[in-house]
């Protein structure tokens, strides 16, 4: 049963990905990307990664779709098509890279393999000690906020920096600029 659900979700992910690439209407592409995120979230839920699924559903399907739509309302929702001659060399490079990536997956441990390195490096310590160290039943929260507190601090700083970048690019700094140059504003001729 669980295999059937996996195959179902992965098939739809592939179909939606191809549809997004082929689509020229950007509005529909944004909507399909939202569905793509929601399907990924269901996939994470099936794989018992509820925290990741929660984040994917709220960020991927929620906020980023809305921000994409806000961007589309500022620009246009049609992709400008540009005819390019087919390039055989590019196809060869893409096929070779894809083949190398598929070949690399043969070395990966099976999904959920208890002997895989990912389940042994520090995971044993976290599973054994989280409850005694922090008293927090949700291990994911304990790892993110306490054991890996530096990383989460860095991530929060990244979000902060992204916001500052958007504010500088989209006019947050304009008020300060206007305030600095308020004498010049009344008389355009006076400016050099």
């Amino acid at each position, binding site marked *: 049963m669980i295999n059937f659900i996996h195959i179902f979700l992965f098939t739809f992910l592939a179909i939606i990905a191809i549809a997004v690439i082929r689509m020229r209407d950007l509005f529909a592409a944004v909507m399909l990307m939202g569905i793509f995120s929601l399907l990924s979230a269901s996939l994470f839920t099936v794989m018992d990664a509820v925290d990741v699924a929660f984040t994917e559903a709220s960020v991927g399907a929620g906020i980023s779709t809305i921000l994409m739509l806000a961007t589309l309302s500022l620009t246009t929702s049609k992709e400008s098509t540009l005819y390019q001659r087919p390039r055989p060399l590019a196809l060869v490079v893409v096929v070779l890279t894809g083949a190398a990536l598929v070949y690399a997956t043969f070395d990966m441990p099976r999904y959920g393999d208890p002997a895989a390195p990912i389940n042994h490096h520090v995971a044993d310590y976290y599973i054994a000690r989280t409850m005694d160290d*922090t008293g927090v039943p949700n291990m994911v929260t*304990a790892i993110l906020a*306490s054991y890996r507190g530096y990383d989460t601090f860095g991530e929060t700083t990244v*979000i902060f920096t992204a*916001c*500052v970048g958007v504010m500088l690019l989209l006019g947050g700094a304009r008020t300060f600029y206007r305030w600095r140059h308020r004498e010049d504003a009344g008389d355009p001729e006076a400016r050099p």
Partner: protein
Amino acid sequence: MIRHVILRVMAKMLIPLIMLFALYVQFHGDYGPGGGFQAGVIFGAAIILFALIFGLERAKQAFPPRVLEVLVAVGLMIYGGTGLAAIVKGGNFLGYGALAHDPVHGQHLGILLVELGVGITVASVMSTIFFHFAGRGRADV
């Protein structure tokens, strides 16, 4: 957008519930799935829904952009401040065990404060970014 009665009534009913759910995700993150990041995104989504239904101007009255811009930094400072408080109390940076007499209580307090900082920053970042995107084009989104 204000003409659509069904959207308006439904949004009025849903927005408080979404905000309440965000607070639940924020403070229940220790026990179930969720945490500051998800809670912040959900709270930001509630603000964005308000702006979409009632217009950007009324959203800016309800959630002043000046306050949100300050909160972007305040959240990060709560996170960093928790780390510094741990140093002042004699521990390492972000070593929450030093925050209380019992290391386990200290960890609990530290995780709560840090997640609160993340939630405040993420919620105000999401709404600030949306206000800036929406404010560039037509005023009513």
